[in-house]
């Protein structure tokens, strides 16, 4: 009986430890005063956190990641909103096939996506590194955009558009006047999900990064291969807090979890 009572709390404890543990270790390591990345941390200092801001490649790759996350997400939404609308409102021939193709980047392993983009698009067509990254990130975010926006459209009755038309609005006007305002929450959620997905993306970016152009996670891996100091831990901790902050704000103001 005793063993049974302990089984659930112990399992729960282990799950939490595996989920949160690495994060706590990273956060602790980033406050280390020592010279190498180690746990338990040796002493306490903020020097590695301060150092993050002085490494030039971190700064460049951070802005590249930011550009890809925001630009890629916006592009995915511009493609994804009309696609979701068409998929949910019209009985398109092959709608299921289109849905599957659109979600493919989630299902196919990132390494394969990266390699195929490199082998069949970037190399033969001489696509620039930044453009290649931008296209890849847009494609990776698109499934999330379509899925979240579709869910939000699914909750919205379609007859309100007809009601708007009968009150004098054009079809297109009805989309902007009564559809868009009602799926705003879904669009914001898709934006945040896309942003976080893109920002944390490694495998695809790894293949497409080139001289002088890297995303932040790729740059962090490259950095660690040369320097093994706690600044990478400090940067990871900062990024983790940034993501948590974004999701917290999103949940607070938009009810993020309703759409994901």
């Amino acid at each position, binding site marked *: 009986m005793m063993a049974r009572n302990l089984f659930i709390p112990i399992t729960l404890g282990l799950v939490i430890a595996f989920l949160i543990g690495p994060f706590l270790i990273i956060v602790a390591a980033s406050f280390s005063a020592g010279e190498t990345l180690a746990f338990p941390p040796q002493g306490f200092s903020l020097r590695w956190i301060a150092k993050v801001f002085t490494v030039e490649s971190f700064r460049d790759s951070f802005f590249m990641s930011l550009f890809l996350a925001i630009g890629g997400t916006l592009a995915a939404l511009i493609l994804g909103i009309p696609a979701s609308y068409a998929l949910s409102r019209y009985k398109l021939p092959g709608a299921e096939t289109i849905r599957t193709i659109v979600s493919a980047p989630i299902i196919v392993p990132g390494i394969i996506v990266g390699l195929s983009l490199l082998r069949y698009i970037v190399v033969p067509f001489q696509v620039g590194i930044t453009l290649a990254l931008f296209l890849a990130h847009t494609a990776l975010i698109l499934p999330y955009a379509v899925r979240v926006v579709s869910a939000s459209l699914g909750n*919205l*009755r379609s*007859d*309100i558009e*007809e*009601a*708007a*038309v*009968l*009150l*004098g*609005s*054009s079809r297109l*006007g009805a989309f902007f*006047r*009564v559809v868009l*305002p*009602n799926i705003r929450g879904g669009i914001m959620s898709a934006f945040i999900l896309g942003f976080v997905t893109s920002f944390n993306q490694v495998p695809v970016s790894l293949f497409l990064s080139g001289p002088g152009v890297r995303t932040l996670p790729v740059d962090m891996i490259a950095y660690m291969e040369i320097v093994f100091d706690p600044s990478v831990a400090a940067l990871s901790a900062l990024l983790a807090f940034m993501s948590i902050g974004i999701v917290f704000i999103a949940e607070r103001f938009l009810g993020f979890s309703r759409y994901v």
Partner: protein
Amino acid sequence: MSDQNFLTLENLTLAYGDTVAVKDLNLTIGKGELVAFLGPSGCGKTTTMRAIAGLLSPASGHVKLDGVDITRVSANKRNVGLMFQSYALFPHLSVYENVAFGLRLKKTPAAELDKRVRAGITSVGLTDYADRKPAELSGGQQQRVALARSMVMEPKVLLLDEPLSNLDARLRLDMRSELQRVQKETGVTMIFVTHDQGEALSLADRIVVMKRGAIEQIGSPEDIYNRPTSAFVADFVGFENIFELSDGRLKTPKGLVEISGPVPIAAGLAWRPRMVTLGSGPFQGAVRGASFAGNSREYLLDTPLGPIKAEVDAALPSHELGAELAFDLPVAAAAQLRKFG
């Protein structure tokens, strides 16, 4: 154009892809009439209504409103209102903004817009709810917002899709009188779609009964209720004993049966259970089922004519299951059907 043919549908054929939903329909509706399209689901009543609204363009035929052929006029320029079954209120807008939506699109001057919107909201008794969102209102209140939103546009025709079916019994009475009030005050031509004969009978000036994409019968509520002209309509309004006539005799599962009295020239005859005379008459039947319905008692009889349903005053002595009873189907009382099947 006169007021008698304010809205006309001419040879209207409507289709969804290859499926023809309404075939060669002709109908004339007068100004200020309150017409019901009545029929079971799939009869084409909603499709016809959508074509009048302009949400569906006809495969062939014409829709004319107030002397103008509007067949090719798009839905947003017809000035036809539609109250949706689900109300279709805009969830992100307040009651006030829902009602103001159409007037804003028409660029109505601010002062006039405010006046008309407030009058519209007041007329449906929602003055205190102007700032609420639709989700904060009850179903009945939402429907009244939908009504105000359509009426504030002063439509030439107001279409209503199953206006009473989502409401409970009490609200149904409220809405019925609300619609009658609106119609009386504004004189707007109203067409409503329903599958409920009670709704159609109680609300409409004229009923158009539809079946499989065609009009089966048009008439006043009294006509439809008392003088159905086809077996379909008779069945729909509660004539449960329906027989086809052949050479002046009733066609039954067991062959032709003579019936007393002068038999009219008709395709068939129909009797409500209440019209069946029980206790005397030329026919015999055995009671197979009996049920008590407050004021009356209903019997199901096994007879040589097939099953017969009869309804008698509950004050009369009741009959046991299995009892043999004499009954009559009085020809004089029967509805004469011109069309059978």
